[in-house]
């Protein structure tokens, strides 16, 4: 123990404390503070970069989901529009068809009515003609009867032949 105590050197102690404390102060100012600050900054920077990368990734995902959704919506909209258009087309065609049919039917009906009325008119005229003709024939026959019997018969035959020819 005494040997150990004897090893203690006050001068050396003085220099050691002086140099060491000076070294701590100098290194603190010129080395440790800048080093630890730089390392901290770097670590913060890395942390932030990782965080922002993660955020960007999430944002990207959201964006992609949005895009997907919008695309889906657009597709649906297109489908409904197409469907509507098709329906409209069908309806229009149907409408046109029924209208045309109705129109045609109407025209046919009109034509039929016209034909009927014309036929009736013609029949009436014919009846009138026949009656007049019959009357005239009867008149002539009656006239000839009075003159000649043979002649009357011949005349009737002749007239009948005329009628046939008519």
């Amino acid at each position, binding site marked *: 123990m005494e040997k150990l105590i004897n*090893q203690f*050197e006050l*001068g050396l102690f003085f220099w050691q404390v002086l140099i060491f404390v000076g070294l701590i102060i100098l290194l603190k100012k010129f080395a440790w503070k*800048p080093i630890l600050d*730089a390392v901290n900054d770097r670590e913060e920077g890395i942390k932030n970069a990782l965080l922002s990368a993660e955020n960007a990734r999430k944002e990207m995902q959201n964006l992609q989901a949005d895009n997907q959704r919008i695309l889906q919506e657009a597709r649906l909209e297109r489908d409904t529009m197409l469907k509507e258009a098709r329906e409209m087309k069908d309806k229009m065609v149907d409408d046109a068809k029924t209208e045309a049919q109705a129109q045609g039917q109407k025209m046919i009906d009109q034509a039929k009515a016209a034909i009927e009325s014309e036929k009736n008119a013609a029949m009436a005229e014919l009846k009138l003609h026949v009656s007049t003709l019959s009357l005239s024939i009867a008149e002539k026959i009656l006239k000839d009867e009075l003159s000649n019997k043979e002649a009357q018969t011949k005349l009737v035959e002749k007239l009948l032949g005329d009628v046939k020819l008519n």
Partner: protein
Amino acid sequence: MVISNKALRFIIATFVICLPFISMANPEKDTTIVQTVVAHEGAEASHEAHAEPTDVKSKVKAFIKHHVLDSHEFSFAQDDETGVHYGFSLPIIIWDNGFQIFSSSKFEHGEAVAESNGNFYKINHHDGKIYKTDAAGTITEDEKTGFPTNVRPLDLSITKTVFSILLAAILMFVVFTSLAKSYAKNNGIASGIGRIFEPIVLYVRDEIAIPNIGEKHYKKYMSYLLTIFFFVLFLNIFGLMPFGINVTGNLTITFSLAILTFLITNFTANKNYWGHIFWMPGVPKVMRLVLAPIELLGVFIKPFSLMIRLYANIFAGHIVLMSIIGLMFIFKSWLGSSLSFGLSFALSILEILVAFLQAYIFTMLSALYFGSAVEEHHHEEAHH
């Protein structure tokens, strides 16, 4: 010839250097040594060779003893035959009725008496410390304790240890300011030499400071923890490099580091910390009276254990490693020297581990003490 050293390269260099001693005679060297070597190799227990190995042994022993102590000059190597020292002198600053400043070369490697302004000083061989003497340089020793009774002036010299601390401090400052600057230059990413240390800085923060002190308070201790970690680590590694600088294996150094941890712990402590020491919550009142002195003692034992742990680990590491290196020169045979070379190589690697481990433990325990000082007990019962 004995050379202070540790690292691998130097071990190999030492091995190469000692080759001529083992294999061939150098005619310029003192012939008696060569003869002894031959005699030693030839006959193991020759009475003539008996004197020489003890000499090598004692030389190794003295060298190790000198190495682990502080020194007033920075010596890389010395040649005992020619008495040439390789190294450089350091300034001596002594407070003895005014500053006495002179170069350590005046001591002539501890051989001579240095004179400054009419005062005479001499370095004691046993502890490497400067004592005031008369002109002849006589140092009287106490009969009982063996310590010199001469007056010891206040020695503020830039010793080898102070020089090494300065070197480490400058190196740390350069390395870490360059790391700090490289962030600004390189967009927040470290570059250059400091880049190696960035993971260690982060380790100290994430594995030592935050778990032990907590997210809330750790910031104010970071400067101290980082400085002490790298200071101890750098000096531990310095100790493993050639020229054998033993700084963290010096009791004064570890004492000053431990006392700083002690002071910071107790000056930043909150009332919870003191409450736990003097009036332990959650135990019977009688026990509190018993626990108070024990806890108070613990306040001092904690930094004391820090001091002893680092000192003993590094000190012992140096002694063991140097002894095994010294064995190479004592064996002076191919088998023994090779074996001790292998052993010292393995130990050097172990010492590198110890260098990191002790730096880690010192920082870790400091952080633990700081953590206990600022800990907030929201749920008292859960802790006891």
